[in-house]
């Protein structure tokens, strides 16, 4: 017997001998698990995960700030280049790596002194710019969905990470994001992309004497550029 069969047979023995019929029958267990997966939905939603409208956007911003992210409200996407350039002014960095996202490619950086390249993250990147797939208000969390327009490495390698977020993509709770992914999935393709990153604030560690320090391996600073959906 190989490892797989041996483990499964041990589990089956352990589960079959329990006296709670019908759970001691593998066929019943298999159909019970399928049913549970089929009916997937929230188990218990905290009140904080039920905010609507403007309150939801406010909650997202205040929770993100609590996690030490910096949140800027922008009037329109066209403001992104200047806002990023202004924030970067104090650093002396002149290069910005942007994700291969059409909405970011359409931005006009000619008025800034920034040198723009497009692609995945690289070890020496100082500043990166991405567009968020979504966000979760209850904890101020960004949701990044890997794909041709969103390289995962760009979320982690730059020193400072800028993320554009449309207010209409802010969900009240995590479960709404799962529902959206399920809804958007093409038939016969996996619901999940290779990588979903929930990001709540900049990278940190407390591994030296439990002293909190920002900027362990991921970005030292996280800027969320929040844009009203109507202007996009």
């Amino acid at each position, binding site marked *: 017997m190989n*490892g797989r069969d*041996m*483990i*499964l047979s*041990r*589990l089956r023995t352990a*589960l079959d*001998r329990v006296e*709670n019929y019908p759970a001691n029958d*593998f066929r019943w*267990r*298999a159909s019970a*698990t399928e049913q549970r*997966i089929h009916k*997937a939905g*929230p*188990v*218990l939603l*905290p009140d*904080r995960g039920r905010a609507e409208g403007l309150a939801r956007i406010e909650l997202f911003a205040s*929770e993100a700030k*609590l*996690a030490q992210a910096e949140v800027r409200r922008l009037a329109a996407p066209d403001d992104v280049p200047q806002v990023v350039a202004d924030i970067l002014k104090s650093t002396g960095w002149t290069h910005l790596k942007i994700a*291969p996202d059409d909405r970011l490619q359409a931005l006009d950086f000619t008025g800034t002194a920034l040198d723009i390249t497009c692609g*995945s*993250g690289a*070890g020496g990147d100082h500043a990166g710019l991405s567009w968020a797939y979504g966000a979760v208000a209850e*904890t*101020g*969390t960004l949701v990044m969905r*890997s*794909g041709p327009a969103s*390289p*995962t490495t760009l*979320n*982690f*390698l730059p020193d400072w990470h800028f993320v554009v977020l449309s207010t209409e993509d802010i969900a009240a709770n*995590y479960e709404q994001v*799962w529902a959206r992914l399920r809804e958007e999935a093409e038939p016969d393709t*996996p*619901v*999940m*992309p*290779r*990588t*979903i*990153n*929930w990001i*709540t604030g900049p*990278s*940190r*560690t407390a*591994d*030296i*004497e*439990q002293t909190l*320090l920002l*900027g*362990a*391996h991921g970005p030292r600073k996280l800027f969320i550029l929040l844009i009203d959906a109507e202007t996009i």
Partner: protein
Amino acid sequence: MTHKPTCRTFQENARKALDDTRLQAQMARTIKDGFQQKRLKGMSRLPEYEALRDAARDLKNHVLDHLDAYLLRFEAEVVKAGGQVHWARDADEARAIILKICQEANAKTVTKGKSMITEEIALNDHLAAHGIEPVETDLGEYIIQLRHELPSHIIAPALHLSKEQVAETFKENHTHLNADRDLSEAPTLLKEARAELREKFLAADVGITGANMFIAETGTAVIVTNEGNGDLTQSLPPVHIAVSSIEKVVPTLDDATLLLRLLARTATGQEQTVYNTFFTGAKRPDDPDGPQDFHMVLLDNGRSELLASEFRDILRCIRCGACINHCPVYGVTSGHAYGWVYPGPVGSVLTPHFVGIDEAHQLPGASTFCGRCEEVCPVRIPLPQLLRNWRVRAFQRGHPGGLQRLGLKIWVMFAKRPALYRRALSVGIGVLKRIAGKRGAYRWLPGAGGWTKTRDLPAPQGGTFLDRYGRGER
């Protein structure tokens, strides 16, 4: 071989820790004023916290009742997403599977996200013995790897070290840097580790992470990190291996969410861990980055036996560390005293299973049964009861032996004979009172040295409870 346990010498290990004044001060500051306060603050921000604990307990029980079916469903989904699933019966098999994947990828260096399972199977030594350099990338794990130590805490591996010790370790190991550099402050230490590890991330041939949980619905596994190290570990190299144990499966994305609402809050008091990364199979054809090959290793290592035993409830554990943070014994002994990979109450339940009760028979006794571990456990594991179960097994195997056992036997002999017990007690009390004299306390008494070393032992006062009850005192 796994790590050589030193559980037999728990008492000596603990004594050494108690005599270490620097360690004692650090433990008081990081545990009582640190982890415990942070959890309280985190709880206070979520009114539904207690209800979430009940739901999490029920979820994990449901998973354990259907474990084989969920694992099969998970396997099928991983394969659909272009990944491979490997099943490992024990530590040897897991190490062999992982080594083979690394060798097939011609790996010279491997970066690692923090993973207690790879500590459990002592993966690093095995890879190193076969010419592959494993590099731990979590800051705490990196520090203890340089020092050739085991983690002293499951979520804060270097909790026992001072920043001066860390500085010393960096100076000894980062010999290509200026020996006179100033490493007196924590931020400088972090900066140096970040620069060292950045090179390693980019050069690694394989990335190995654990998985805090994995999801049957979509074939997705989840890692939780504050540093972002596990995320670079799995997105930069061409091959990603995730290792997890079979009980960490959950049915759906929503179920994973339920546990993630509890995990960080209970562990560190954070609203959410900075990075929760959900990974599914290999990189997709259009993806600009991510691993071309994805392997998921599912480890049993005796968990199927636990499922059929009186220790089944321990399989609900989500490794938040709360029982460790609230254990008065761990709070003064620190983690290394426990002598193996998992410390604290959860360790005292798991370790005897992995290293044998003959080696670890002292661990179930390393508890005052105060019950705080059960009180704070987010999935309500009855840890004191599980420790008690191990005490029963230990006693059956002849532990403790010698004088302790003889003493217990004598006590049982009296306890089973109430008349004799009462008579012996009043005689004993009389003798003790006479020895104590007018002072009413002892500076020294045979067999009570542990107590009288630092304080007087009060002598018995008045009659026994039953005497007084018999005289009508109420």
